[in-house]
């Protein structure tokens, strides 16, 4: 502890010597305007503060008298003067309010055609949803295009804060909050050698963003913090924002993270898809009736449909239900399920089926179906 305290002068020197800035890097279209407004207010404050502090010290020095001496003047009031200093500052206040409110409205008005990314906050992490079922904790966006985050929380209140973008919004359970920003600085990529070296040194463990200052794909990043207190790991509920220069680059990254990693079993991947892709919203695992039939009675069960026909829920049936959900509707349910055609790859569907086999109470609780077997099943 004391050894560290000895570091103090050095650290102080560091602080002063190195690039001292009031703000983090400006990386969004809001940043410049926000910082300008901040300094505008600050200068007005200085304008007021210097005379106030100056008077304070000057009066102390000038009018400091020995005890018992009477005051030079005993003016009780001066209404014009008092009115003046009550009313004049108001003009500055109005200016601040107007500029702040205009800029705020801009921050609340999402431009047409903004790229929509879903964000889900939970204790203590983030899931970004890039559509088509691609989920990743990192936020990857496109430079010079507006991005809208549709945010929800699954437990307590969190708050998304990207200092470099000067943007913040709480994520409140029970409602959808949104925010938008347009990044205008693309993240650099580190050289392949540097990345390879870092990957080697980092090993298999959790990627150490703070240490490397780039992501495991080799991108520099901006910090994204949770700023609403949310419990034990609030202070490590952070993720990174990577800004891609081109849409191709972004798509390549999305493509890369969308596939089942080679080291994951289909069941595990299927479970992840069940939770991430919205199956869980309508299909329970414990037999409860929700919007759709429970998965507890899916695979291997006899199904009766609204049109009176029957069928056994086998691989083929499940696959069809995912791709063409309105063809065969189980009796007693509304045909509300959307098609996942083009949303799930064959591998994804196979993984879901493999997962369903593990949760269904009927039929073989069986050995995992191999990929080959699955791909043979054609519509």
């Amino acid at each position, binding site marked *: 502890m004391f050894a560290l305290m000895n570091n103090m002068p050095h650290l102080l020197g560091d602080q002063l010597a190195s690039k001292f800035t009031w703000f983090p890097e400006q990386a969004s279209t809001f940043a410049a305007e926000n910082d300008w407004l901040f300094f505008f207010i600050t200068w007005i404050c200085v304008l007021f503060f210097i005379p106030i502090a100056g008077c304070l010290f000057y009066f*102390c020095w000038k009018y400091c008298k020995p005890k018992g*001496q*009477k*005051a030079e003047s005993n003016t009780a009031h001066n209404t014009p003067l008092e009115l003046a200093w009550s009313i004049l500052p108001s003009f500055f206040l109005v200016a601040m309010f107007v500029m702040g409110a205009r800029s705020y409205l801009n921050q609340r008005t999402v431009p047409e055609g903004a790229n929509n990314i879903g964000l889900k906050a939970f204790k203590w992490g983030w899931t970004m949803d890039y559509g088509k079922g691609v989920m990743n904790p990192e936020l990857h966006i496109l430079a010079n295009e507006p991005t809208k985050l549709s945010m929800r929380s699954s437990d307590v209140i969190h708050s998304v804060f990207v200092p470099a973008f000067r943007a913040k919004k709480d994520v409140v359970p029970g409602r959808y909050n949104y925010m938008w920003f347009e990044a205008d600085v693309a993240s650099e990529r580190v050289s392949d050698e540097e990345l390879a070296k870092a990957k080697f040194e980092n090993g298999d463990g959790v990627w150490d963003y703070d240490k490397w200052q780039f992501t495991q794909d080799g991108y520099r990043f901006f910090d994204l913090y949770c700023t609403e207190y949310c419990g034990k790991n609030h202070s490590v509920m952070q993720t990174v924002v990577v800004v891609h220069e081109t849409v191709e680059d972004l798509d390549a990254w999305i493509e890369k993270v969308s596939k089942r990693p080679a080291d994951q079993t289909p069941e595990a991947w299927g479970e992840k898809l069940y939770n991430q892709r919205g199956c869980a919203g309508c299909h329970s695992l414990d037999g409860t009736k929700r919007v759709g039939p429970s998965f507890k009675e899916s695979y291997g069960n006899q199904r009766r449909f609204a049109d009176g026909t029957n069928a056994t829920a086998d691989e083929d049936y499940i696959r069809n239900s995912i791709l063409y959900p309105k063809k065969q509707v189980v009796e007693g349910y509304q045909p509300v399920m959307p098609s996942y055609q083009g949303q799930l790859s064959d591998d994804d569907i196979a993984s879901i089926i493999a997962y369903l086999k593990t949760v269904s109470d009927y039929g073989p609780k069986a050995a995992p179906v191999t990929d080959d077997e699955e791909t043979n099943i054609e519509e």
Partner: protein
Amino acid sequence: MSAGSLPSGSQVKDPGYPTPSENYLTNSKGILSWIFTLDHKRIGVMYLVGVTLAFGVAGLLALLIRLHLFQPDGMVFQGEEANNWYNQVFTLHGAIMVFLFIIPSVPAALGNFLVPVMLGAKDVAFPRLNLCSFYLWVFGALFFVSALCASGLDTGWTFYTPYSTTTDSSVILATSGAFILGFSSIFTGLNFIVTINTMRPPGMTWFRMPLFLWATYATSIIQVLATPVLGITLLLLIAERTMHIGIFDPEYNGDPVTFQHFFWFYSHPAVYIMILPAFGIISDLISVHSHKRIFGYRFIAYSSIAIALLGFLVWGHHMFTAGMSSLTTIIFSALTFTVSVPSAIKVFNWLATMYKGSISLTTPMCYALSFIFLFTIGGLTGLHLGTLATDMHLHDTYFVVAHFHYVMVGGTLVAFLGGVFHWWPKMFGKMYSEAGGRLSAFLVFAGFNLTFLPQFILGSRGMPRRYATYDPEFAGLHQMSTYGSMLLGFGLLVALFVLLRSVGAFSRFGLACGKKAPANPWGGATLEWQCTSPPPFYNFERAPAVGDPYDFSDLEWEADEERYVTVEPKREVIPEEQPKPAPAHAEDSN
């Protein structure tokens, strides 16, 4: 008594009344005479002891927080549960400081002692209620202690749902404590409003009241109007936790933002409960120690009331990023700016009071000057937070932490200390060491700035608040802040030492206690300086001469006795046969 030093022909009024054989501290003895006392002065002293203890506990927690943040990975708490420990410590620091220290500090401790004396009344209107509210405070404090002993509290002092409805810590004990403390606060406020309305003696018109009383009156209005809403909010929160009533918990169709509205409807006005009495103290301190009439008495008085009322319109600025509708957000931002005007008025008036005064740089004055400096910074940085666009960046960062510490610590705490140093001779009849007092004022000022100025920079650079660990880039500023907090803590210890020494707490170590205080050591013109120090049980041996509270023209310094005496008193001649004993009523009904 000391006619020789005065111009011939001037009539000398007996400066100190014949010293009564007993004062309020000595007129009855034994612990029971304190426990069951109905004397507002003793209750005030008990509050003073209580809030000081609470402050000590919360202050130690603050030092623990600062020490922990000395290193990016956390220095004090280690291991798996480190973050939980940190969360509990900052929550308790906030909750104890707010509910047990700041809210009762000036109004309940100093206010109880001073309001009736300044007013020229014998006691507050409801002495039993007054004692009751002190014991409610104790009871509430016990609840906090029991929460601490049970499983702590980790919700932050704001108890935001749904965190507070789902966490395992003792939220119910703590909220019950806050609920009880709320009632303590309500009863104190109610008592003061009634006292000021109906107990003013003849001659004490509204505009002859010292500004401290105006500030206390404004504070009491807020206490009575806002605190019940905290009561119901906490009650509903307890019900939410026990029965899941579904008003605040999204799990059951409730809305957490509604909770924030409920909570801040109280807690924003509560900010003014904390700062308004401080304004009152500073108004009196600046005027007395500049020996000059307060400049713009009415503007200051009205601005206190204006702040109290406007304070009810701005609670939404705590929720700019929470998901309020844009319209509500903009309205609240606009209203927020209106509150800054009356605060600014006061600062200008204080400066104008010092202008061409006869300033004595006594300890209370040093604190008052330090208050103006620090509060101005705190107030001005509020503009950054009230402005919507900049708040989007600064909200819930260390900028906010620094801002409200400048207002709460640099403002209220410094004013409280100034007030304690100012009225200490009156309360305990002893003078303290001026040098020690001034040293403490300087240390507190320096330590405070070193602690919290870096936090403005931390916040604007994006350091979120309530983080147990942080990115290494913020380390340097955090360390400066930690050093500052040590200095601040040391300064406060010096202040405590100086005060305790004056009443002989260290006499067994050979440290002499202070000199006996005269009735009027500073040259104040308000009524409390007309009674002896300490005041007799009944405050005034005879009816005080009610005059202009800021007219210092008939006070003369008596160097050999180190006191001020009144010459040619402009004593209000009260006819023996008055038509009505309490003319205050006539004014009330207007």
